[in-house]
């Protein structure tokens, strides 16, 4: 059982350079996309498009650069809970501002 000696980091998941470069290429492409799209007028939808692209970019950074894809359920769940509470914070604030 490798778990018995998990304080020697030898059985960790190794991501290849190629895969990391691929993630970087996607991130650079999405950056170019968000700059181009921001110059097109969608009115109020612009900020939502920008936020969706930013969220997709963040997901790539989190899953691969930050290894979240290979982390335990504890870290995955607690991360999602953090984002969930942040959404509640922002959502309640919007209720307040929208119906003031």
């Amino acid at each position, binding site marked *: 059982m490798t778990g018995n*000696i998990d304080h020697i980091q*030898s059985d960790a998941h190794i991501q290849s350079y190629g895969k*990391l470069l691929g993630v970087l290429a996607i991130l650079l492409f999405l950056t170019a996309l*968000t700059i181009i799209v921001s110059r097109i007028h969608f009115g109020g939808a612009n900020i939502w498009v920008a936020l969706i692209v930013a969220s997709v970019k963040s997901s790539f950074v*989190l899953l*691969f*650069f*930050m290894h979240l894809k290979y982390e335990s359920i504890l870290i995955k769940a607690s991360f999602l809970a953090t984002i969930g509470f*942040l959404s509640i914070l922002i959502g309640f604030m919007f209720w307040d501002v929208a119906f003031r």
Partner: protein
Amino acid sequence: MIVNQSDSNYTDDKTCDAVGSHTDNENKHYDIVGSRTGMWLFLYTEIMLFGGLFVLYAAYYRMYTADFTGAGKELDILMGSINTVMLLVSSFAVAASITAIQKKSRKVALAFLGFALFLGAMFLVNKYFEWGHKIDLGIFPNSPLMEDSSHGRVLFFSLYYTITALHAIHIIIGMTLLAVTMAFIMTDKVTEHKYVLLENAGLYWHLVDLIWIFIFPLFYLIY
């Protein structure tokens, strides 16, 4: 339950002793998973710290949309884009340095980290010129120009300075962590058997990148 846990720790130490092929330093008991979990918990507090500022942004954006989009056009998209690319590439370099150390090539890991450190420094230089240019134009908190500006425009630039300054402080802390990790690799305190410090410093650096991924469109690209 607690007794069981301490039993298993005891077994761990025994197993480790039995392996015996590592130096004393590496045989000291420490908890990789616990260490990384602690780092993630800290990152959650950082997310809430910047999250609070983004909440302010969201509320003021809704109240002063025209002022915000007008003021956003005054920021330099080229500068912002270059900084975005530099942070993304530096994040890649830090992730690649972990791959390098796992493959036992410490020199490659050091090269990647050095490159990330260089990009972090260039980011700050860029920011210095960007801020300097804005201050030359009279755009800074409490400037005479700002006192004559609309309320929304003042709020936009106040948030711009507050958030980018807090972010720049995080860049400096992240660079310090990366530099310390490099020193630890050079002195063999971070090795292919034990590199959780590199992972945690990397997590911090990626978080700084993540926050910039949201700052960039919200300030530079709003139209």
